């Protein structure tokens, strides 16, 4: 359990840093950044085989953040891992920054793939998994999809391809936070049950509480040891989780706020971090 205490601290650090990063310009993709915080903590805090001192290390595990608008949460994670100084986080979205609104492999140390045009990350992740297999590497490719993103047809092209190719070193997640830009996913375009869908496509599928560090971690362990299928872990999450303002706003995909409006959310996240440290 000591391990999960550390991961909880890491997760709350990511949350606080992400909120401060977004607060600096008073707008941004708050909701979808908050909902993947625990996943990023487990991946970068425990599961991924990486070397922050050598971001281009060929044998590293890679992450494709296909829901590229969650960049701010990934940047906070990478900064905390030492890929670049924490102060860089305050340059988010400003001219000449290394940290654009959507992930860019050329700009940010530690970002493995450029994303932002939704639906494309599943294909590039499949390509990484195929390429690494051909090159004889044992590395894993991690892929984070949004539930709204799954509206895109390319997701289902990639889903059939990954299963046909038996990409068992591809571990994907759907961040099932139930909201997209215009409202509830089920209202904008009902997609059905993600577990049923990916199961039907031939994936090894699990569903866990996406904010439960231990559950996410164990699901990844399970995914790593199964063979012959790509793995899908559907993360049951809350959009905006851990950010008071986002949790109280609907929809919360992209928020604009004053520093007064966001202050209680940051204070609450800092209190959660303090509590995690003392636990």
């Amino acid at each position: 359990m000591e391990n999960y205490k550390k991961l909880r601290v890491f997760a709350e650090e990511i949350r606080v840093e992400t909120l401060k990063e977004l607060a600096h310009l008073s707008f941004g993709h708050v909701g979808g950044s908050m909902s993947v915080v625990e996943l990023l903590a487990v991946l970068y805090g425990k599961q991924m085989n990486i070397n922050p001192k050598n971001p281009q290390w060929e044998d590293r595990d890679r992450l494709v953040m296909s829901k590229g608008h969650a960049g701010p949460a990934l940047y906070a994670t990478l900064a905390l891992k030492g890929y670049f100084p924490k102060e860089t986080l305050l340059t988010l979205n400003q001219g000449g920054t290394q940290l654009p609104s959507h992930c860019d492999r050329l700009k940010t140390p530690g970002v493995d793939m450029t994303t932002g045009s939704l639906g494309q990350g599943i294909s590039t992740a499949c390509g990484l998994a195929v390429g690494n297999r051909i090159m004889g590497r044992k590395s894993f490719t991690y892929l984070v999809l949004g539930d709204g993103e799954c509206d895109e047809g390319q997701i289902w092209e990639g889903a059939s391809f990954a299963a046909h190719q038996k990409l068992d070193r591809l571990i994907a997640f759907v961040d099932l936070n139930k909201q997209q830009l215009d409202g509830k996913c089920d209202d904008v375009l009902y997609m059905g049950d993600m577990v049923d869908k990916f199961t039907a496509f031939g994936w090894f599928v699990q569903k866990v509480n996406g904010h439960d560090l231990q559950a996410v971690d164990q699901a990844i362990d399970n995914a790593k040891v199964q063979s012959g299928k790509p793995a899908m872990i559907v993360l049951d999450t809350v959009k905006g989780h851990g950010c008071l303002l986002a949790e109280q706003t609907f929809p919360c995909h992209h928020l604009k706020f004053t520093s007064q409006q966001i202050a209680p959310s940051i204070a609450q996240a800092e209190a959660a971090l303090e509590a995690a440290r003392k636990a």
Partner: protein
Amino acid sequence: MYTVKSVFEKETQEMRAVYCQTLRELARKNPKICALDADLIGSSGMKAFFEEFPDRAVNCGIQESNMVGVAAGMSAAGMIPFAHSFGPFASRRVLDQIFISCAYAKLNVRIIGSDPGVTAAYNGGTHMPFEDMGALMSIPQITLAEPADSVQLEWLIRQLEKEYGVFYIRLLRKNAIGVFEPGSQFALGKIARLREGTDVAIAASGILLGEALKAAQMLEAQGISAAVLNPFCWKPLDSDTLAEYAAKCGCVVTAENHNIIGGLGSAVAASLSRTCPVPVEMVGVEDQFGEVGAEDYLRQRFDLTADHILRAAKAAIARK
């Protein structure tokens, strides 16, 4: 350097056979070379590659968008992918995937779009790309090339093993008119000069190059001296050589198996307007959709013959 043949005849080998053979030779020495297709191996002539390198050949099924993304991902893992589909499905259908997953991400991908323009013949208008190069033209730093014969194609494929970036190759699958002597070497982004002339410069690409050479001979019989150029790279376009010939000849004719809007004609005119403005006449498809029929019928139907080039040359000269 390249050498131009003295007689221009239909080649004995299909272009697709040369493509496959060249890629197999490269792949034997370079383990990073890989091929992708979207359920068109039977058409692309790549069966032999897929049989020889089953671990490095991926048939993605009929999902071109995914194929382009997979190719981008494979290149991020260090491989050198060549991905094929018919021209329309390797360009307009996957424009955003080429734009974002390949070009914006600065990955290393070669896309082969086969059956340019009227050579799609019996597949008809849905499969007849008069817009593929134009659709991709505005992607920053992409290279667009249309090899004219098997010699140029083989050189290009070998060259692409060494290059880094995003490349779209407009590939004629069938037999081309042989223009260059075997072993000819070119330079990416540089025009090949086939024939010197002083009255008009004809810049022709793909299947129109043979027609341009015929037109030049017809013009010569009428006392008109025509230079023939082959800008096989539409992008980057060799502006310097174009300007040199515009200055020397005083007018230019472009000839392409493509819509002149967004195509070679537009690119040449845009270039010359900035370097050496002279009258430019364009032989190509005049903003129309393709249609079904025999290739010879379609060449006539869309005004893609030596006669049309000859008339355009005279019109250009008259405008000097």
